[in-house]
């Protein structure tokens, strides 16, 4: 019985560490939301509990339940989170850029500005085509 008990203790300790660190990710996101100056840097902080925090906590659930069939379900939850979080981050970031919710002096590079300038120049040259690219 001794090896089983030791293994149980190790698994318990690992999952306890995962839970504490995963919860600390949420706290880090909250601190980032409160302290960072603009929308883009707050978005950076917000991704921590959504990806790494969820991974750690799902791993803790899988370790605590000691069954194998649970892992595919937990993997499904995490994969879907990985697929859907970039969609909302893309939309929020794009809307924030278009509505000027950013401190431009804090950006190290702005690759979207060249595209926007090009589209604006094209619109100015040919106003009839404006309906095609104004959306999104």
């Amino acid at each position, binding site marked *: 019985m001794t090896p089983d008990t030791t293994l149980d203790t190790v698994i*318990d300790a690992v*999952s*306890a560490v995962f*839970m*504490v660190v*995963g*919860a*600390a*990710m*949420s*706290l880090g*996101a*909250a*601190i980032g*939301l*409160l302290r960072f100056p603009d*929308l883009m840097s*707050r*978005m950076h902080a*917000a991704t921590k*509990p*959504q990806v790494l*925090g*969820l991974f750690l*906590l*799902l791993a*803790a*659930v899988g*370790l*605590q*339940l000691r069954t194998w069939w*649970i892992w595919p*379900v937990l993997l*499904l*939850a*995490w994969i*879907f*989170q990985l697929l*859907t*979080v970039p*969609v*909302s981050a893309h*939309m*929020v970031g*794009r*809307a*924030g850029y*278009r*509505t000027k*919710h950013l401190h431009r002096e804090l950006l190290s590079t702005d690759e979207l500005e060249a595209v926007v300038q090009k589209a604006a120049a094209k619109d100015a040259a040919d106003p009839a085509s404006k309906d095609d690219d*104004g959306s*999104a």
Partner: protein
Amino acid sequence: MQLVLVITAVTLSLAAAGAIVRIAVGPSLLDRVLAADVLLAILGAALCIDMAVNRHLNNLMLVVAVSVIGFIGSVTVARFVADRREQPSDS
């Protein structure tokens, strides 16, 4: 394990309080949407910790559903913001 439960409960409560403060003070709609997303992630974390500490699976489908459809709200609101602020009359 009860100690872990207490530590994580305090941590997640502080995190939720911070996210709610950001929802309250704004300053923009997108900041509030982002903070609501973080609050949803904190809720999912609390559900996972409940499952792990008490060793049950009652919340598993809820966690999967949150991870599948949780992004729809912020996408919708972001789209709404983009469309609305594009009106020339909106200063």
